[in-house]
């Protein structure tokens, strides 16, 4: 009952308290920032600070001579990429490999959609779940282990060659691994073996989310199973598919290195070297850190531009950005 009339003193007091509260809040906010500061230090150390490493692309850096004693060479390494004809030849081959593997992966990116549609047609729920669990398993093993499996199965003394020889179908072991025949295709097959089941999970979930009334209506209209898939399931999955497609386009130059590194050998090197692997081989193998940095710098720039373009396209066509 005391607060019924507002007297000026109380109003001033309230204002003062409010200001005090704001101040305390700001102080509290800075205290909270101090709590996350150690993590920000990690972000700076492992994400921002390495960017300064690009500076090595403009020096003739040969460890253990420190950077400040190395010679500044300006754009020499960048010029070298386009002037020296053997380098040009090599780089063109590497770019061809990179583009080929990315294009093959993009061209087969509809396979997980088909896989999901097919799996969804299996009626027995336990059978379906078992297949899902077992086919996603390869996604969770490392590329080293995939190579170990490849070696056990396909090396000259591997399971497949022994089996074919025992059956007298072949006289000499087939060189699946130690040859440069169909290298791009083989790499595609391995990444499909590893990723197909896992890649389909997102579409399986999308199929579950499709309104059952759509199918009811289709059946009433006398649509066949194939027509239901063609006119209902596939159109409903397209938006998800486009998101995944654009993500893979923006990662066009980032094939990663693990797969190609483990499968690389003296025979298949010409067609297996993608950009990431080439950077490793040049930088760590040949110890040309500066030249390798120059290549990876160009790669990073092109990747950022690709991501930006894809984002603009996505905004224009779907009205939402992917990042």
């Amino acid at each position: 009952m005391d607060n019924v009339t507002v007297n000026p003193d109380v109003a001033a007091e309230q204002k003062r308290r409010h200001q005090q509260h704001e101040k305390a809040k700001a102080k509290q906010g800075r205290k909270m920032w101090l709590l996350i500061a150690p993590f920000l230090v990690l972000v700076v150390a492992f994400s921002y600070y390495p960017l300064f490493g690009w500076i090595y692309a403009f020096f003739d850096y040969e460890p253990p001579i420190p950077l400040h004693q190395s010679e500044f060479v300006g754009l020499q390494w960048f010029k070298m990429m386009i002037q020296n004809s053997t380098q040009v030849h090599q780089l063109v081959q590497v770019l061809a490999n990179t583009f080929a593997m990315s294009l093959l992966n993009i061209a087969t990116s509809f396979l997980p959609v088909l896989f999901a549609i097919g799996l969804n047609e299996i009626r027995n729920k336990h059978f379906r779940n078992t297949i899902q669990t077992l086919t996603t398993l390869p996604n969770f093993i490392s590329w080293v282990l995939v190579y170990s499996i490849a070696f056990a199965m396909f090396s000259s003394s591997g399971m497949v060659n022994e089996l074919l020889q025992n059956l007298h179908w072949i006289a000499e072991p087939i060189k699946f691994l130690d040859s440069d025949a169909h290298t791009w295709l083989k790499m595609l097959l391995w990444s499909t073996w590893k990723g197909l089941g896992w890649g389909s999970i997102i579409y399986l979930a999308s199929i579950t989310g499709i309104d059952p009334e759509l199918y009811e209506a289709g059946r009433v209209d006398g649509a066949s199973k194939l027509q239901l898939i063609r006119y209902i399931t596939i159109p409903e999955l397209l938006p998800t598919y486009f998101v995944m497609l654009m993500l893979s386009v923006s990662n066009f130059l980032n094939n990663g290195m693990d797969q190609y590194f483990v499968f690389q050998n003296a025979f298949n090197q010409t067609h297996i070297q993608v950009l990431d692997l080439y950077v490793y081989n040049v930088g760590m193998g040949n110890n040309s850190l500066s030249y390798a940095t120059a290549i990876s710098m160009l790669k990073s720039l092109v990747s950022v531009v690709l991501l930006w373009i894809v984002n603009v396209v996505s905004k224009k066509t779907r009205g939402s950005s992917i990042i």
Partner: protein
Amino acid sequence: MTEIERHETTPGEQVFRVFNILFFVVFTLICVYPFYYLIINSVSANNLSAEGLINWLPKHIHFENYVQVLGLSGIGTAALVSLGRTVIGTGLTVIASAFLGYMFTREDLWHRQFWYRFVIITMYFNAGMIPMFITMKNLGLTNTFWVYVLPAIVAPFNIILVKTYIESLPKSLEEAAALDGATTLQTFIHIILPSCTPILATVAIFSAVGQWNSFQDTLLYITDDKLYSLQYLLYQYINQASSLANMVRNGGGVSAVASVAQSQTPTSIRMTVSVVVVLPILFIYPMFQRYFTKGIMLGAVKG
């Protein structure tokens, strides 16, 4: 419902159904058989497995390979390194993701938007392999255990997952804690952490698999063989075995092979180490599959 559907099934659809099931059975076998092949060969008689005679069932089962392989000093150390980085690395990134995810929901955090973007944007660029190598060298992290753990602690994607999750929780508990005068850390530990366990389990499982499978960081940053991970050691064994096999084929160094692997053949060592490397995944994956599935769904929603 099913009765009606069965009535409507045309012959064409039945053919499709048969081929569909056939395809999935075959593809599933292709996915599973290699693991089975490794396991039966690692427990069969070594001379038989070296000749490629163990394809369907194990013969003369023995576990000597495991005793021998686990006794090799390199493997024990590598197993400890892999286990250590998986446990410590996962623990730290889970705590960091939870804490940062929570802090970035607190509107009173100093310049919250700026710092959030400062962290998240690092998802979209990276300096590249060689600058990373030079950085690790400059920071004195090459040939230390911490090179496995420190760079993985702050993971922007995990932070987004946790932050989105916390924002979907009712605010009432947090407010009640604030009224009771709980500090930020107390609220985090007693209120936020317990209610985030589902999403943190997803983060933990992905990070653990990533740590266990990681190979490139050993390749780039480690030359000290006491710090090799199991994956890296496996890679070395495969390549040694292949060069040994080449020597045998060229008719040269049979004695060299014998001295390297008297009772053990290169094949048996490779198979056994492969099984040791894959077994944790084979055990863990089916148990936690729902967390994996949830992880990719959340990722897709954000993506």
